[in-house]
């Protein structure tokens, strides 16, 4: 049962999917034996004729969806991110991205949230994989409400899209009224004279806000950007913020290599180079443990963000 007080990102996806299904009869949902844990059971109960169970067959999951999309359907495929897009890169590349059909690839349990299951089930490479594919849109919602909005919007965008869902319950960051548009980053915390920009996505947005609040107490003002769309990234907001602050810290529940932070660095190195510190997994595999233990191990807590902000400030001031 959904905890009304503190609802998870995947619950937001599952609830919104039912609304999307009600509004648009072309929406179909496919899963690879993970109906319940990817929260598509709600859709399956309401629209059994538009729900497809393919079995533990992720390659079929995305290729069948490609065929349906070629016939005008808007298929949402769900699995764990390690399996899809992890296992299904080739199929996604050829039959979805290159075909340019509007399949919505939903990767659940992304990041370290699969904790005790171990590194085999912790998808830490999926942002990198998906953001390099031409035509692909990549969205990483930060909480329940944002997952709802993202689900509804990508159902209408007519493009191949990857929706990355964390498993763990994130802190609540947005409300039903918070603005959301794919491709537009939101500045969640602003100050008169910010010294550092903290760019985050997914559950790291909450950590970034906690860090910013603590930093304000010691008179380090920051700007916190919720960069939920990894691709196409909101270049204007990122560049403007780098110009205002002169230093950036990026935060993601993903490998540092090739992820959201890399995308930010690519934009800034071309347009307005500033010192950047990266929070994320440092090109190692995870291991079994509670997600919060893993976040500590990989220096991805709000405390680590505070340290990174101080480091980047030193670099900025020594230039």
């Amino acid at each position, binding site marked *: 049962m959904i905890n009304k007080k503190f609802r998870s990102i995947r619950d937001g996806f599952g609830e919104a999917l039912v609304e999307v299904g009600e509004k648009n009869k072309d929406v*179909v949902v496919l899963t690879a034996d993970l109906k319940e844990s990817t929260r598509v059971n709600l859709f399956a109960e309401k629209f059994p*004729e*538009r729900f*497809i169970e*393919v*079995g533990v*067959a992720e*390659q*079929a999951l995305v*290729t*069948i*969806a*490609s*065929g*349906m*999309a*070629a*016939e*005008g*359907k808007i*298929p949402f495929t769900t699995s764990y991110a390690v399996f899809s897009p992890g296992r299904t890169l*080739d*199929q996604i590349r*050829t*039959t979805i991205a*290159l*075909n*340019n059909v509007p399949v919505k690839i939903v990767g659940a349990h992304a990041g370290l949230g699969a904790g005790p299951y171990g590194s085999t089930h912790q998808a830490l490479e999926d942002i990198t994989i998906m953001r390099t594919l031409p035509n692909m849109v990549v969205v990483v919602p930060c909480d329940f409400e944002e997952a709802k909005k993202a689900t509804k919007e990508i159902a209408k965008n007519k493009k191949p899209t990857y929706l990355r869902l964390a498993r763990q319950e994130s802190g609540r960051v947005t409300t039903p009224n918070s603005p959301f548009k794919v491709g537009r980053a939101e500045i969640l915390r602003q100050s008169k004279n910010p010294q550092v920009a903290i760019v985050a996505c997914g559950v790291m947005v909450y950590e970034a806000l906690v860090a910013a609040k603590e930093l304000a107490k010691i008179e380090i003002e920051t700007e916190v950007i919720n960069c939920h769309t990894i691709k196409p990234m909101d270049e204007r907001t990122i560049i403007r913020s780098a110009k205002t602050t002169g230093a950036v810290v990026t935060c993601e529940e993903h490998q540092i290599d090739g992820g959201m932070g890399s995308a930010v660095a690519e934009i800034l190195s071309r347009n307005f180079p500033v010192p950047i510190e990266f929070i994320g997994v440092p090109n190692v595999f995870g291991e079994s443990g509670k997600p919060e233990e893993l976040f500590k191990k990989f220096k991805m807590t709000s405390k680590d963000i505070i340290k990174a902000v101080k480091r980047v400030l030193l670099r900025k001031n020594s230039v």
Partner: protein
Amino acid sequence: MEDLKKIAKEVRRDIVKTLLEAGSGHPAGSLSMTDILVALYFGIMHHDPKNPNWKDRDRLVVSNGHTCPALYSVLARSGYFPIQKLKTYAKLGSPLQGHPEREKLLGIETTSGPLGCGLAQACGMAWAARLDNSHFRVFCTVSDAEHDEGNHWEGVLFAAKYKLSNLTLIVDRNNIQIEGHTEDTMPLEPLKEKYIAFNWNVLDIDGHNIAAIINAVNEARKVDDRPTVIIVHTIAGKGVSFMEDKSEWHAKVLNKEEAKLALSEL
């Protein structure tokens, strides 16, 4: 039927000329697929070259995309584009890519090349057709060596589960792949019995008999409780004596003398 045989002959000549011009491509599979594609486009499928996106057209997924020199020739001879365009195959800027792309050429239902992905896409199309109460049929061609791919068998399971009787799979059973004969590289036999065990309707026919291919597809139309696979026994490199049943011609480039000799036999 004599007309279709004549077309098949022209298509085989096109393949040789196209591959010589390109200096690239897959002759053996293109030649073994020729009669299947001629049967589909000239004797089986409902389609309109002047309106390639016609809603009620039959769909064809060519999972074995490397055989596209044959597909391009058949499309051209059906009227999708001028035959002279075959000369541009695999050249920069051409809509006739080395492997077929849906976004580049009207008439191509889906991009293919990486093997084993076509059947599952055809399943998606057939499932969608049923949901929409559409009456078009979905055809899918696969090579025999594609049966090495897990993705293909996932599609085989799915089509049986959802009893996709509007789907017809055509296997180009030419017995070769890059490294050699299929039964040496990765044995597939008994292939017919495998499909029977997976709850498919199975037909087994001579692949270089266009009438037999058309008849088999008509037989498949009568079955309404499961998908049909037609295992079409073909000869790799069919029509060119020095290529027939030779795996080294899977992707070998023809030189001028070889092309001349091949054309003299066709």
